[in-house]
């Protein structure tokens, strides 16, 4: 009997190192499913990042690069200029992308660099143990905002999609989440659109995915998914912020 649900070909059969309830695994899987469905396994170069997603190249069954913290879009630019017909995407956390790597992100969009960024927003620095990130919510307690993030000390959460959507070089910008099956399906569609945008040569694309971090939020996995829906979504609304129509359609 054929299996209805099986491991994507582009995902290596190996246990995740992620904490229980972490959403990185789902987001990895979505990227892999889309690459399978688009038949791009042999043409993909994944550029990882430094954060909890640092081992992406150990899970993805395609060529991979481990860059330094924040510089993935610059590394992806180098790859893409040499290999313009390949699918080149980065997989970055909010510290990696929206703090140390802000310049590389913004200027990839300025150039309309034909790459895709998968941006995993979990409101803090997971790998280093839960410090404040630019995306930390107002009042949110982290190890470096023990009294909650305050305006006077640390300003406001950084909305990456809203900013990038103002840029001419950005072709597709969307924000999704994975806190329930309907959102997982929507997010997968967004990732597919972003990759298709790139393969059609239309320019820069980014999909932000709101992601639960039960360990550093001090919650159980169910509470953490609820936190995404109830606390993150109001600050980081879901949806498409910029769409460039693809003639050949996905």
């Amino acid at each position, binding site marked *: 009997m054929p299996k209805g649900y099986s491991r994507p070909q582009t995902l290596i059969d190996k246990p995740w190192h992620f904490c229980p309830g972490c959403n990185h695994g789902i987001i990895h899987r979505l990227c892999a499913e889309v690459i399978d469905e688009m038949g791009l*396994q*042999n*043409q*993909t*170069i994944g*550029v*990882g990042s430094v954060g909890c997603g*640092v*081992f992406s*190249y*150990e899970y*993805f*069954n*395609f*060529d*991979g*690069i*481990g*860059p*330094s913290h924040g*510089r993935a879009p*610059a*590394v*992806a*630019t*180098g*790859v*893409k*200029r*040499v*290999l313009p017909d*390949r699918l080149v995407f980065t997989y970055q956390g909010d510290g990696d992308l929206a703090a140390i790597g802000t*310049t*590389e992100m*913004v*200027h990839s969009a*300025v*150039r309309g660099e034909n790459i895709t960024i998968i941006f995993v927003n979990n409101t803090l620095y997971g790998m280093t143990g839960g410090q404040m990130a630019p995306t930390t919510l107002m009042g949110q307690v982290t190890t470096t905002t023990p009294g909650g993030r305050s305006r006077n000390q640390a300003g406001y959460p950084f909305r990456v999609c809203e900013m990038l959507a103002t840029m001419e070089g950005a072709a597709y910008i969307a924000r999704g989440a994975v806190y329930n099956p309907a959102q997982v399906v929507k997010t997968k569609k967004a990732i597919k659109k972003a990759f298709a945008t790139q393969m059609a040569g239309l320019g820069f694309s980014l999909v932000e995915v709101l992601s639960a971090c039960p360990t550093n939020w001090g919650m159980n996995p169910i509470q953490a998914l609820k936190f995404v829906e109830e606390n993150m979504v109001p600050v980081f609304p879901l949806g498409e912020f910029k769409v460039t129509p693809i003639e050949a359609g996905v």
Partner: protein
Amino acid sequence: MGELLLMKGNEAVGEGAIIANCRYFFGYPITPQTEILEYLARRLPEVGGAYVQAESEISAINMVFGAAAAGARVMTASSSPGISLMQEGISYIASAELPAVIVNVMRGSPGLGGIHPSQADYNQSVKCGGHGDYKLIVLAPASVQELIDFTILAFELAEQYRTPVVLFSDGMMGQMMEPVLLPEINTTPVDRPWATTGMNGRSPNIIHTLYLPADDLGNHVKQLFAKYDQIAANEKRHTQFMVEDAEIIVVSYGITSRVAKAAVEMARENGIKAGLFRPVTLWPFPDKALKKAAENAQLLIDVEISMGQMRDDVRLAINDRLPVDLYNRIGLVPTPEEIYEFIKSRAREVL
């Protein structure tokens, strides 16, 4: 081998890269390097390559990382402050064992310093300014012709050893014009089976620098250093002039070595047995050759546009057997007369 052309040092580096089949350049403007960038922005599209003006030197070196990982011949160029910004990326490139060429048209420093010629980034590149245990091949040309020839050599060494190579120029060499011959080299395609180009039927290629288990990291670093030992055994280069009977040997590289040669000639004309030893590779440093050259000497004089950053390597090469004086200028290239006067004054005291 074509006709004699008049070329500026910075343009010579650019043309050397084109001759070496480099098709990708990522950089950021900074005086006195900028003509390399401008030259390649024009030339690379003509030969089917790509030029990207990065938003910073940090981005430029990481674009180099990506292009090298994708299997391309790639170069970046900057001047001292920009090379400082590249240090993290250079450490990653060395660890990932990617071939790349990094040109430093050194300028006055520390800080913003100035746009004068300088050799004060010796320690940064020769001792490695990034984090961790790694080495860089560092080449020190001394003429516009050598800027071309050594750019080509830099690509060959980078490719052969899968390692970043630094080419030292400076504010004077980058800006001066000299007649050059453009060499012709055969550009056979290089096989890079390790490159991340898309699997196309093979198993995944992974380029990374993370080794969490201590043993894995230890083995990785040991393997890097086995390669560096091989480089040290094969690639030490130097030139020397009248050292055989020299009592005073001037040790100098790059632009100052040319001036020092004229000073040595003046000394000889005036009866002082002087000679010149010029390291061409700063790492690996030509230590054995210097030790041998200095066998009959009584004094070495290190001539640099820095506070004597190379002097430690000179002392090590001769096991601290002889005094090593320093003659330096900061912010400008000394004249032959100035160096000669120094040689003369030291000859009176020591000999």
